């Protein structure tokens, strides 16, 4: 396994592997998304308190969790690239950032559309919402910083520092509902169990799996372009079938 890991740490071998893996993630993502939507809208019952508005949860919670999770993965890859000087890890960090930013945006957008009917406000400056907004800015800052530096290796290092320092924000988002008095509700699903209806749980976990698989597929697709761009002067790129033809 260790040998395999190192083998695929090289952009030349990972490029081919990523290409094969994309449909493996993309198709289940599409199918699970449809199943999740079906359970979420046709199987899950109407909520006693929030009526039909609660159905936003099936996109809001998975997108929010993933926006935080992808940030940690991105910072982890960026740190690996910084410490071990591995090219591929830095490229993965760069490829993850836009998808993470979009999940943060979806989290805020669906949150606003849920907040308006339930709280009476699109936005409030409470701890959970504000820290999630900062997460979006961190993603955008990472992208802007990297694209403002011409030398890709220097851009990797500068971006990595920002990503690592910014990761302190993720536990703040996660624990904000416990640490401060916020308008945002606490977690409904805990390790100790949940009071959620079984169909609601199924819809949320199915959507979570779908979005996760989607994030992997789209990141692999994006990283393949980044690999080609950065490795364009190498022998293996010029010998690729899609370049030669």
């Amino acid at each position, binding site marked *: 396994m260790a040998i395999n890991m190192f083998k695929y740490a090289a952009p030349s071998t990972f490029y081919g592997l990523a290409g094969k893996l994309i449909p493996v993630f993309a198709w289940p993502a599409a199918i699970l998304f449809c199943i999740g*939507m079906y359970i979420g*809208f046709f199987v899950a019952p*109407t909520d006693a308190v929030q*009526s*039909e*508005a609660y*159905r*936003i949860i099936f*996109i*809001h919670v998975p*997108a929010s969790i993933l926006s935080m999770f992808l940030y940690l993965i991105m910072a982890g890859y960026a740190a690996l690239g910084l410490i071990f000087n591995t090219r591929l890890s830095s490229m993965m960090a760069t490829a993850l950032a*836009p*998808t993470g930013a*979009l999940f943060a*945006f*979806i989290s805020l*957008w*669906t949150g606003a*559309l*849920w907040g*308006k*009917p339930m709280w009476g406000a699109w936005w409030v400056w409470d701890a959970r919402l504000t820290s999630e907004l900062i997460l979006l800015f961190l993603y955008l800052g990472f992208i802007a910083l990297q694209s403002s530096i011409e030398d890709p290796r220097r851009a990797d290092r500068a971006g990595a520092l920002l990503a690592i320092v910014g990761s302190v924000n993720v536990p703040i988002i996660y624990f904000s509902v416990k640490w401060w008095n916020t308008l945002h509700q606490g977690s409904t699903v805990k390790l100790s169990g949940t009071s959620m209806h079984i169909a609601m749980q199924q819809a949320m976990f199915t959507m979570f799996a779908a979005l996760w698989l*989607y994030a992997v597929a*789209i990141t692999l*697709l*994006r990283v*393949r*372009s980044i690999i*080609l*761009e950065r490795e*364009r002067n190498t022998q293996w*790129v*010029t010998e690729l079938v*899609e*370049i*030669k033809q």
Partner: protein
Amino acid sequence: MNWLDFFAMKGYAWYVWGSYGIAILVFIIEIILVMHKRKVTLQQLHLIRDAKIED
């Protein structure tokens, strides 16, 4: 339950469909942009290849 009632979402239609609509739109735009990026990258590499052949 008929379809009109379903889409009305008991008065929360704008909020519910606004959430899912924008989320799905974001995914579609992202997929188009990333696929376009791949196309452009390949085109650039073809140009580089052709320039080398001419040399």
